[in-house]
């Protein structure tokens, strides 16, 4: 199944989802699609003026173009997703490459889809590590109908 990850750049989520036989929908996929498509040069991410227009599907026209541009990447992934794993305390989702309002919109759109969602926080000790990994494995196994790996 296709699993949307939040934060979409998370190494850990991407690995664990793939490890247990599902397809992680991470930020790398739409970026790769753009940088491997010929057109006009638009560095650094090949986000062209068309992308904020595509983002209008997810955000209104008065919303800043940065959010609409980002939603052109993440929106189709959310539509494609059959389930989602969310880390709720991921500070790395906000910063020079992230956007707090886009993150809010992403989480809202995931909830709107009414797909199975697993909410987690990053583990802060070994016991929480077991709980974290176990929860993801169990969630993914249940998506398969409880069949495990």
């Amino acid at each position: 199944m296709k699993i949307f990850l939040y934060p979409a750049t998370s190494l850990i989520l991407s690995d664990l989802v793939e490890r247990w036989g599902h397809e992680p929908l991470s930020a790398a996929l739409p970026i790769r699609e753009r940088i491997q498509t010929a057109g006009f040069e638009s560095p650094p991410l090949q986000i062209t003026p068309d992308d904020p227009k595509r983002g209008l599907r997810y955000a209104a026209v008065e919303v800043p173009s940065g959010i609409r541009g980002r939603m052109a990447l993440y929106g189709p992934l959310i539509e494609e997703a059959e389930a989602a794993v969310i880390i709720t305390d991921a500070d790395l989702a906000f910063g020079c490459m992230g956007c707090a309002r886009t993150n809010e919109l992403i989480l809202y759109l995931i909830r709107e889809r009414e797909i199975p969602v697993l909410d987690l926080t990053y583990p802060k000790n070994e016991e929480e590590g077991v709980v974290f990994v176990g929860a993801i494995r169990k969630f993914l196994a249940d998506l398969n109908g409880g069949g495990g790996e």
Partner: protein
Amino acid sequence: MNPYVPAFIGTVTKYVFIESPEYTPSDLALRAYEVSEGLMIKETCFGLQVTGSPDEVGRVVTSLRSIDPNHIFVKDRGFPPGDPRRCRANLGGARPGYYGHEFEVSSVIPYVSHGLEVLEGMDEKEFSELEMMPGKPGLRIPDVLDVKRLKELMDAEEL
């Protein structure tokens, strides 16, 4: 506007991170060179970047992961290695996205590796009997103190 001619069309790039007490990125690189056919492999301080056809990259990554499954982590990358829009050699500073990886690799992955090791020891029946914690994210794990961990605690106490 300048025309944009992409490179490495149809390829995928994967990051292979290693946070292992037993293996280094060089060990991974050696194994990758041994098993790969026609891939571009770049060794880095944290592991490797592997670029090539999706099938071949998948095969090599599976082989690399088998070296130390609980301490090797893999994710997709949008850009090929050394791309001037991302490579720090051209940007002067950490690559965008580096801090996210640094946080996860240094602060979270040791706990995730521990979790993988504990769950590895459980059989399918044992695991399927575990229940999700009501109202809280996560899984209810029985309070079992690992013998190895108990020995470590006893040794630490004696010092």
